[in-house]
């Protein structure tokens, strides 16, 4: 991801334009515009008239009333949209699977539009038989289905120095979780035959950035996939159509999209993306390299700045948690900024290195709260506070910020991204 190089404060507008606040809530508690002619005892138009027939929506889209649930960008972050990022609207989603059209995007030279007939994957280097696979070849090989999260190493990277962006979409929206269908990378390497001195592989994209990253061979043989489907359908162009690498639990940058080449070598390549970028600069001016695993992390997605509370009373706090080191084992929620914690309820399936959904149910009497969540994983790792993380890494790392997020829920139901001390 790109650093916020320019601190141009472009937008000065208030963010919570949609949040009417508790005061505006009507008798039924529904603050937003409603039309009495559609409400009982009246019979609305949609009950009286025929709707669209089949085939009118050959590829279905969400309801027109959901038009605001879209990926969004932060214009001051980058110099150009071709080398930039858009964010998943986490505040508007539930469950663990991200819809394909809402998965965040990170491109370095725009979206390559690859004709699947002309797609080729080259596998060479320290192998017995250098090979080229067509898409059809890949689809003939044995395939598996795996649900994994993908998080950009720079997710929450703008928050190292303090609360900055007022929306979970922007603070945490560089993550998504889908089901991939693909060939285990091990099967492809077996087809070519590895030389005995093989230790690393380099994955390279076929886009205009030709993004390349080094991956230790042990990981490649363990659980990496050469994937061509997400959530059942072919990969979206933004996600690497027709083929991308899946590297479970590791930073998104190594999940090379539009995968065109795999080269086997005996040492890492030290490419620009694993030296000048995606290295974690510490206070003494030295930087960690090859920080592949994404540490356990969680965030409350609702309520959050883009999803304020509209009513007092019973409320479901909802959030997402994930870990690059294994299954999420527990998520705790705090209502008082981390003084006291209670285990949240994880609902839905829990997969290895996938998102889990957690809920905490509260009766909210309108008092201000400081909401936090804290994830734990199968290795015993506990998501640290932002201050604990800063104590070790200082504030120049850009990448791998998995510190605990605090949302201040105000008496009027609005929510703000805050720092606590």
């Amino acid at each position: 991801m790109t650093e916020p190089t320019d601190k141009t404060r472009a937008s000065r507008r208030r963010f919570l334009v949609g949040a009417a606040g508790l005061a505006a809530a009507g008798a039924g508690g529904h603050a937003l515009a409603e039309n009495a002619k559609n409400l009982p005892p009246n019979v609305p138009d949609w009950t009286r008239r025929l709707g669209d027939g089949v085939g009118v929506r050959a590829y279905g889209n969400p309801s027109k009333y959901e038009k605001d649930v879209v990926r969004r960008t932060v214009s001051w972050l980058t110099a150009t949209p071709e080398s930039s990022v858009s964010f998943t609207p986490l505040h508007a989603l539930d469950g663990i699977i991200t819809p394909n059209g809402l998965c965040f995007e990170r491109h370095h030279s725009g979206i390559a539009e690859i004709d699947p007939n002309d797609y080729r994957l080259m596998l060479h280097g320290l192998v017995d038989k250098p090979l080229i696979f067509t898409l059809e070849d890949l689809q003939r090989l044995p395939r598996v289905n795996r649900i994994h999260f993908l998080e950009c190493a720079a997710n929450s990277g703008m928050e190292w120095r303090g609360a900055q962006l007022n929306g979970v979409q922007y603070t945490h929206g560089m993550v998504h979780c889908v089901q991939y269908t693909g060939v285990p990378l091990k099967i492809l390497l077996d087809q070519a035959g590895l030389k005995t001195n093989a230790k690393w592989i380099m994955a390279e994209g076929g886009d205009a950035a030709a993004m390349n990253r080094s991956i230790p061979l042990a990981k490649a043989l363990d659980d990496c996939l050469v994937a061509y489907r997400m959530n059942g359908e072919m990969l979206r162009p933004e996600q690497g159509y027709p083929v991308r690498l899946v590297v479970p639990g590791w930073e998104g940058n190594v999940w090379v999209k539009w995968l065109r080449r795999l080269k086997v070598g005996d040492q890492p390549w030290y490419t620009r993306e694993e030296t000048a970028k995606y290295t974690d600069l510490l206070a003494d001016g030295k930087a960690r390299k090859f920080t592949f695993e994404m540490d356990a992390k969680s965030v409350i997605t609702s309520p959050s700045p883009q999803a304020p509370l509209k009513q007092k009373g019973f409320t479901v706090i909802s959030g997402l948690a994930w870990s690059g080191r294994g299954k999420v084992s527990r998520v705790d929620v705090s209502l008082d900024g981390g003084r006291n914690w209670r285990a949240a309820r994880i609902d839905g399936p829990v997969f290895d290195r996938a998102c889990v959904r957690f809920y905490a149910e509260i009766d909210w009497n309108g008092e201000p709260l400081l909401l936090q969540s804290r994830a734990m994983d199968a290795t015993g790792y506990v998501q640290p506070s932002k201050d604990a993380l800063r104590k070790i890494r200082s504030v120049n790392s850009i990448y791998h910020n998995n510190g605990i997020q605090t949302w201040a829920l105000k008496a009027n139901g609005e929510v703000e991204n805050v720092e606590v001390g």
Partner: protein
Amino acid sequence: MSRSARLALSLTALLVLVLAAPAWAQGKKDAARNYGIGHAATPEQIAGWDIDVRPDGQGAPPGHGSVKEGEKVYLDKCAACHGEFGESAGRWPQLAQGKGTLASNDPVKTVGSYFPYLSSVFDYIRRAMPFGAAQSLSNDELYAVTAYVLNLNDIVDDKFVLSKQTWGQVKMPNQGGFFDDDRDKAEKAFWNAKPCMSDCRPTVKITGRAAVIDVTPDEKTQKRGGVE
């Protein structure tokens, strides 16, 4: 039908059945198997795509380029974004200066201050630059423009000619600036099976607010990313 004839008939039927049965191809788990899928890659095919270069120069193509030749390429194809002296025009990556800033409050990561190897720069320019015209430079232009960027960073002198032969003469200032991921040791305290559940800290105060900084995009006015 005699008993032996019946037996022969049923054996034939069994045989036919066996021959007609589809072959189950599922092998033992994890056993390497050759599926006969994939096509031999020819040296010519590989040569066209094999563009990566390692720190030791493996993969560097034939050709050469001087700082002086590189200046022309750079002013022509790079300066509009990166600035005439690598200082960056606007928000594009800065290529020069920044020495001594890595431990400061405002680290400036450039080719001279941060990149550990010549190959990290050269390989990147070769595959991705110029932005919007990737893989359009000749090998000589590639060597020349890299030499010029090194010169902007005072890593090579004005007379330097970069080639596979002179590759090893280039010493990047921050080569020793990186170390392997040590989170499992340096952050061992985060593996804490029994985290505190109650009265974990004194009263909590809000110390910073995103609304004060106010750099969040406005949902109503922003161009939508699009649900396709």
